[in-house]
């Protein structure tokens, strides 16, 4: 510590001397002389730096000079001198070199005139210019980095304290003003360097768009320059010259270019070319942003291309004959469609042009299917409906009638198949090309539903399709194949609007499958039902499930009854073996099962007269049945079921061959058939029964009776009766029937041909009308229920509200008809469930408790 003072004095002496040596006033004078001598050091150093001769300079010395100037409060002077120096440098050294590179050609291009030289020459002169500018810029950056290093103390102390932009920023501004914005010496239009720069770069880019190779690195360097320069010394990021000047010009130029290109494509090419060219352009511009200009522009240029190449003429391209959307869909041009989807997604998130086109196409193709099926149905149209056609039917015409019906059934299956094929086509397209777009999926679903519901028989056909598959379609199929079939059925089901109609048909078809033992697999049936339960709901399937329950119950009953009889030990009498199906009335569609003709005028069920042996059997079963189920009512349905009858045909004396022997056959006939045949047991040989007699003793509905007799007395297969007159007409009152003793057949077991009922097929016009009427009637009840339920809760509701709520509640099942709803309301008012509110402003109803 003791030595400290002396060191200090020695040091101060040294400092003083050094000040003197450096020409400084030791008392800290602020004279210009000081400044000038330091500035001399600095300015000569700056010159060396600018001429790239700095490697001999001592950084410390130059820095110290600027440090001292700033300490002596001469920062402002220094700052201004450096600026001045730079300005002079630009004017005297930089600009002359650049001006030299500006050829009249470049000026011509910039002013929009014709260059009059080849693209190649234009490219060369342009590149020359760019190279010159790039060099000037890079020199500037290098020298300014060094200058800023030297002037760091000024930046830190003077610029900060006085809120001046750093010397580097200032020098960037100087470059902008004195180089880029300097006016070109021999130009008329007051053109500046910047104009030339823009036009040269754009010219080069357009050359590249036309397929030339250009120096991307060079352009990139110039773009970098523009990204490093700003409109003002505030250096606002949004005011980069690149953004404010170049990008504006670039986008405008691109817009014009793509406008032209798209117009040319529209004129000379097809949609496929257009798609590919657009994709190519989008990719090119993106790469251009990466390699040639700046990523700052990538979104904006993409937008320009999208607008000019996609949006501008989209509808025209889509409508192009032979290559537009129609052709793409028709010919499965997946690549085109994929591209189209990608491009449209870029410009329109709702993809509405594509959506509309796809929807139109679905409806168009779907309507075609509807039309061809309708036509093919009516083309070989039999003169009348198959069911009623038997009036004057002979053997032959009957056969054709049958096959016509089969044909129609086949048409139904074909309709479903074609709809599914169409659906598959669009599904595949959706998966492959439309990246499983949800909006489009919804749209497609809607269109499918639209055209399917336009087809009046859709419910019936879909049910028939399922019926067909469940009967034999799934035979020999693996589980996964069955799964596919069920999937298809479910898909179709989803589209159907009138679910109640479908339910009606499904019940009918299912009933036949079950009662006639046609169902291939109970397991698959149940799967189908559980699918429907998922799709449509519990209410829909309870009855179907009930039908299944009845079937299982009946099996148990049959077995139980059989053992019950055996246990009675009452085997002395010839016992009729009974297999029974007990059907719960509500679950089964009696009318469509053939029961319609058994109803009287008033709708009550007419029972036929059962033969005694059968009546005994019925009584016996009834006793058994009611033992455990008290209070139930059993009704025996003659129009259902069948019977096996053992027939003995005694040998006919005097006849040779087959007729000379006794023949035994086992005949399978419908229940009615059995009743009729039993009548003949008590008849003496050679006696006959009139139609009327049969009718009277059996009480079988006339229509059913005629048909049954036709089977037994006209059709050759089971002609165990003879008809008089022996023609092939449908039996009618007045005809007589007797035992056909000379019946022969090669088979022991004979199944009497059944004309109606057992096979599910397309309904005839009348039958369909019946079904529809029944359905409408049922709908009426449903609507009634819903209205009452709503009104009970609300007590008071406007017409509008009530309707919309009813529609909403029923949407799941069917789309109610407005007129029908009005009628139902009228009827409810009549029945005093509702009343109109008299003086309400809008029509309003009131619930009457």
């Amino acid at each position: 510590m003791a030595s400290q003072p002396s060191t200090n004095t020695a040091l101060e002496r040294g400092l003083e001397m050094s000040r003197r040596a450096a020409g400084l006033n030791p008392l800290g004078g602020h004279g210009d002389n000081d400044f000038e001598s330091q500035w001399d050091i600095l300015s000569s150093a700056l010159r060396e730096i600018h001429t790239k001769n700095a490697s001999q300079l001592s950084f410390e010395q130059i820095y110290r000079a600027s440090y001292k100037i700033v300490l002596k409060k001469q920062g402002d002077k220094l700052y201004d001198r450096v600026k001045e120096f730079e300005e002079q440098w630009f004017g005297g050294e930089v600009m002359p070199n650049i001006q030299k590179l500006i050829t009249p050609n470049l000026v011509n291009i910039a002013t929009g005139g014709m260059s009059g030289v080849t693209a190649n020459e234009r490219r060369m002169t342009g590149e020359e210019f760019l190279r010159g500018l790039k060099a000037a810029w890079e020199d500037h950056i290098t020298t300014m980095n060094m200058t800023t290093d030297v002037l760091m103390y000024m930046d830190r102390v003077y610029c900060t304290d006085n809120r001046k932009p750093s010397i580097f920023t200032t020098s960037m501004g100087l470059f902008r003003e004195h180089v880029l914005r300097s006016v070109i010496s021999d130009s008329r239009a007051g053109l500046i360097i910047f104009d030339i720069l823009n036009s040269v770069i754009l010219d080069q880019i357009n050359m590249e768009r036309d397929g030339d190779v250009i120096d991307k690195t060079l352009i990139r360097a110039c773009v970098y320059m523009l990204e490093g320069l700003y409109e003002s010394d505030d250096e606002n990021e949004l005011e980069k010259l690149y953004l404010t000047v170049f990008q504006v010009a670039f986008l405008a130029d691109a817009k014009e270019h793509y406008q032209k290109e798209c117009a040319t494509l529209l004129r000379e090419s097809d949609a496929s070319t257009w798609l590919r060219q657009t994709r190519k352009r989008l990719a090119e511009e993106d790469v251009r942003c990466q390699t040639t200009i700046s990523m700052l522009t990538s979104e904006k240029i993409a937008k320009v291309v999208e607008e000019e190449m996609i949006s501008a003429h989209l509808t025209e391209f889509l409508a192009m004959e032979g290559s537009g959307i129609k052709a793409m869909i028709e010919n499965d041009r997946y690549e085109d469609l994929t591209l189209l989807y990608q491009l449209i997604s870029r410009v329109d998130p709702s993809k509405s042009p594509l959506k509309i086109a796809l929807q139109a196409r679905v409806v168009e193709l779907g309507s075609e299917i509807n039309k061809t099926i309708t036509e093919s149905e009516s083309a070989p149209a039999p003169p009348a409906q198959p069911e009623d056609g038997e009036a004057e039917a002979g053997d032959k015409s009957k056969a054709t009638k049958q096959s016509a019906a089969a044909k129609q059934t086949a048409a139904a299956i074909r309709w479903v198949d074609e709809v599914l094929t169409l659906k598959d086509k669009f599904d595949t397209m959706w998966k492959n090309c439309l990246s499983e777009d949800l909006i489009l999926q919804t749209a497609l679903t809607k269109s499918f539903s639209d055209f399917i519901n336009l087809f009046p028989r859709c419910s019936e056909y879909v049910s028939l399709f399922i019926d067909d598959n469940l009967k034999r379609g799934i035979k020999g199929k693996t589980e996964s194949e069955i799964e596919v079939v069920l999937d298809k059925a479910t898909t179709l089901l989803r589209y159907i609007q009138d679910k109640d109609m479908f339910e009606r048909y499904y019940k009918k078809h299912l009933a036949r499958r079950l009662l006639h033992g046609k169902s291939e697999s109970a397991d698959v049936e149940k799967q189908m039902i559980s699918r429907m339960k998922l799709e449509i709901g519990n209410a829909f399937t309870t009855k179907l499930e009930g039908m299944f329950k009845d079937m299982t119950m009946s099996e148990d009953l049959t077995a139980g009854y059989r053992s019950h009889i055996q246990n009675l030990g009452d085997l002395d009498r010839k016992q009729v073996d009974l297999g029974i199906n007990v059907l719960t009335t509500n679950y089964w569609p009696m009318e469509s099962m053939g029961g319609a003709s058994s109803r009287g005028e008033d709708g009550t069920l007419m029972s036929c007269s059962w033969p005694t042996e059968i009546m005994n059997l019925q009584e016996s079963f009834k006793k058994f049945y009611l033992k455990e189920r008290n209070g139930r009512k059993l009704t025996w349905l003659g129009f259902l079921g069948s019977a096996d009858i053992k027939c003995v045909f005694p040998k006919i004396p005097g006849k040779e061959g087959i007729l000379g022997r006794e023949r035994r056959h086992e005949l399978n006939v419908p229940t009615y058939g059995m009743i009729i045949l039993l009548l003949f047991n008590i008849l003496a040989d050679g006696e006959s029964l009139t139609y009327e007699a049969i009718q009277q003793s059996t009480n079988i509905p006339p229509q059913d009776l005629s048909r049954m007799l036709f089977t037994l007395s006209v059709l050759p297969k089971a002609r165990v009766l003879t008809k008089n007159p022996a023609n092939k007409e449908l039996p009618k009152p007045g005809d007589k029937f007797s035992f056909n003793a000379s019946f022969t057949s090669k088979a022991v077991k004979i199944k009497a041909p059944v004309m109606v009922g057992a096979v599910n097929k397309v309904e005839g016009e009348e039958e369909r009308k019946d079904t529809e009427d029944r359905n409408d009637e049922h709908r009426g009840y449903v609507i009634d229920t819903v209205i009452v339920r709503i009104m009970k809760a609300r007590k008071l509701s406007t017409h509008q509200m009530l309707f919309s709520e009813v529609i909403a509640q029923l949407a799941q099942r069917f789309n109610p008809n407005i007129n029908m709803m009005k009628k139902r309301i009228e009827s409810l008012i009549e029945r005093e469930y509702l009343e109109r509110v008299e003086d309400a402003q809008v029509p309003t109803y009131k619930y009457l408790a």
Partner: protein
Amino acid sequence: MSSSDDIPTSTFRPFASRWAGARISGSAGGPFLTPIQAPDVGSPVTKRKRPNLVGPQTIVKVNVHACGDGFIDGDDTHHQSFPIHKNHICHYSPFFDAAFNGNFAEGESQEVDLYEVKPEIFGIFVNWLYTQEIVSGDGEAPSVRSLVYLWLLADRILVSSLQNQAIDLIERTRQQKGNDRLPSEIFPIIYDNTNANSGLRLYVVRVCSAPYLAQIKNSKNYPPQFLLDIVNAIRDRSTGKDRLASVLMTPYHVPEEGGGGDRAKRLKTQ
């Protein structure tokens, strides 16, 4: 003292990190072909990682001369050479960063002749480079006078954090001495080597304008500008009772930014 221009976070230049990287990796390949990365707004250049000595480091030399250039006295203590790890000194001092990494003679020789700095003060700086602590040769806290010289050195070679540590230490020393005074000999030194807005100046004016101070005796240690500043400071003060137990130091600090970070922020070419 603070202007928004100086705070690195306020104006962010997207090229900063890229160009700095290009410089380190050399000029091979040319950076123009690489796509520009989107501005990485999340991590502006605030604090660079402190250097360490794990792994071999280049040594540079700083020859410190107490007097001006061209003047050599016979006293060896006035001319001393310090070998220093380059990464350390360049990390903390933008001045040395520019000298050793620039295109001037020093960049070539990797040797800087630093004039008009006392070697002992520079030694404190060198020690601080490695330890971030301010101690003199004997391991004690340096005198206020030395601390003033240290502050001035740090100001000149642009090491803000050292400036702030030094001025804090001056204030602490003042309080420990108990007499609340600063040695008057430092005033002319300060007024000779700082600008009007310098934190050190403002600080001493603040201390010397306290009301209880003894009479000014050694008038030659009070530069006219200093006296003027004191008078103005007293006038500005609202209340007379100012014991000046301690000075809140924040206003006298220099904004710190990660050493030579501002250099790295500039546009560069290869």
